[in-house]
């Protein structure tokens, strides 16, 4: 029994290795780590450490600069069954014109939509520099055959998506079929072509920090350009400790391979104060090289308005109301 399993694992590894060497050149070393022995996470330690980042005091000009950076890192998102063309157009307009009454604001980094809306979104953002990200691979559950997931991804890329947000097969991952997950990510990466690939781990379904760490390692070695916490459809979504676990994984990966990977916490970050805490955590974990929207994003729909309200408050000295900011 044991012999069969290890043979299967071995086989799986050979297959994936071949896959990698044929299709991609991501690996600087030729050996993949054994994902079963990804580093274990000290739960108490990581939570204590994450809490420490919330104690930094960021005021005045620093706060204003930080908030502008947050705005520039947002992936403005609408992923509802009820999304219409009007809604997507409106959101793309908002992405370019966050608050015209405040001159000199940056745009958001990207808009994030379903594949069917990519074409429209691409037209709507025009030449503003705002990227279009599309979720794919049967978002949010990922419960579809491989062929469907690949088609889904190709469709989004052909429609003009600059970035693809895929979900991993959490069921397979939790069942220990790491090779399946690895191969799937690698296959989608291939289908992405030029588009950057963000891999959504859906940490709310992974149960433990150990598994989050393992999934992060698998995603990065399989070719992810970004790792992302959540779909936003499952609670809990992004939390500071879980993001810290992933940032640490990115750091280790960078030390081993020299390759930078981006990070995108998504879901549940709706207040500017919290967003600033995330930036502090990013800066103190990965450093200044990651402090831009090439390497860090916030997946959020309501964060932008809260940041805008804080910015206007800093300028006018008066606390703001959502009544005076466009919904989307």
């Amino acid at each position, binding site marked *: 029994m044991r012999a069969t399993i290890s043979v299967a694992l071995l086989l799986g590894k050979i297959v994936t290795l071949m896959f990698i060497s044929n299709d991609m050149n991501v690996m600087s070393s030729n050996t993949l780590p054994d994902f079963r022995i990804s580093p274990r996470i000290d739960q108490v330690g990581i939570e204590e450490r994450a809490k420490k980042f919330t104690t930094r005091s960021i005021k005045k000009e620093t706060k204003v600069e930080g908030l502008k950076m947050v705005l520039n890192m947002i992936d403005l998102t609408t992923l509802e069954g009820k999304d219409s063309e009007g809604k997507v157009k409106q959101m793309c307009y908002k992405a370019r014109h966050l608050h015209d009454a405040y001159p000199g604001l940056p745009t958001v980094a990207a808009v994030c939509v379903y594949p069917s809306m990519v074409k429209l979104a691409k037209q709507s953002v025009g030449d503003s520099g705002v990227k279009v990200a599309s979720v794919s691979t049967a978002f949010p559950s990922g419960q579809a055959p491989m062929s469907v997931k690949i088609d889904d991804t190709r469709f989004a890329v052909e429609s003009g998506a600059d970035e693809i947000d895929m979900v991993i097969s959490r069921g397979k991952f939790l069942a220990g079929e790491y090779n399946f997950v690895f191969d799937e990510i690698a296959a989608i990466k291939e289908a992405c072509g030029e588009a950057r690939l963000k891999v959504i781990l859906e940490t709310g379904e992974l149960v433990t920090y150990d598994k989050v760490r393992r999934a992060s390692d698998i995603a990065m070695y399989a070719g992810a350009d970004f790792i992302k916490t959540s779909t936003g459809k499952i609670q809990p979504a992004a939390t500071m400790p879980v993001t810290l676990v992933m940032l640490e994984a990115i750091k280790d990966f960078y030390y081993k391979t020299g390759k930078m990977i981006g990070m995108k916490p998504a879901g549940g970050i709706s207040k500017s104060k919290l967003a600033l805490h995330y930036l502090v955590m990013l800066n103190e974990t990965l450093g200044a090289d990651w402090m831009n929207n090439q390497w860090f994003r916030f997946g959020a729909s309501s964060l932008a308005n809260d940041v805008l309200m804080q910015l206007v408050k800093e300028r006018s000295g008066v*606390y*703001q109301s959502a*009544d*005076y900011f466009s919904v989307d």
Partner: protein
Amino acid sequence: MATSTIKKKTAAKAPKVEEVQSNGAQAQRLEVLKTYKLYIGGQFPRTESGRYYVATNRKGEQLANVCTSSRKDFRDAVIAARGAQKGWAAKAANNRGQILYRIAEMLEGRRSQFVDELMKQDSTKAQAETEVNLSIDKLIYYAGWCDKYQQLFSSVNPVASSHFNFSVPEPTGVIAAIAPQNNSLLGLVSVIAPAITGGNTIIVLASESKPLCAITFAEVINSSDVPGGVVNILTGKPSELATQFAAHMDVNAVVFCENDELIQKDIQEKASLNVKRVLLYNDVDWFSDKGESPYFILDTQEIKTTWHPIENIGSGGGKY
């Protein structure tokens, strides 16, 4: 200064010692004193600023340590009030009436506690009882108005086109009020009741010199099915908070009841930022009949007019 404040704190908290029989032996029991905290979003937090002042009576006796609310406490209260406003306005009018009636019932049940507190704050027994009675009656009065003021203030308007044109009052939203300073309970109730009757939510700063009843009244509200955030009660200095009340963009109306022209002017200037309603009740005698009226409800309502297209109304011979 710091030491003397601490000493005062100890003095104000100095418990009275009662003698109680316990198993036949004489035992000393320490009286449990109430900590007067704030009431924000259905909870009783201390002020985040950690500041307090000592409430005293006319003789200078120390009654309690009371929170000096900060701008941040007020902001938190605005967030709570804004969050609760939609749900409160959406409640059936008669349900709001039932809840106001419930506040009155709870107040009735704790009348002796309020009489005690009022007497501590320089009222005579008769005055205290009158004030509590009037407060309860006022709540019943507004409970009754909950599903009636709409009819009184609505209208069907004559228009020359094929439209059914009507106007109805709608709550203005979040109200920030500074309660009358010269009494502890009645003024507070007089400001809160019409505001919440009309579907608004309110943040109210209690009397600075007579703050005791405010927090006890918060306990009454908290046990009366009033959703958290509908009524938020702060204690502290009007001079410090009036500007904040008037400037906050997420506040839709400000209520001020004193004859202080400087503060009035400041409020009016700051309120112009988002054209919030400014209600100055400086000459209202809350103890008289003039202290209760449906027009206090109307003060915090917006009139919404609807033009509803219809077939030619003249053809039926009817006229509006």
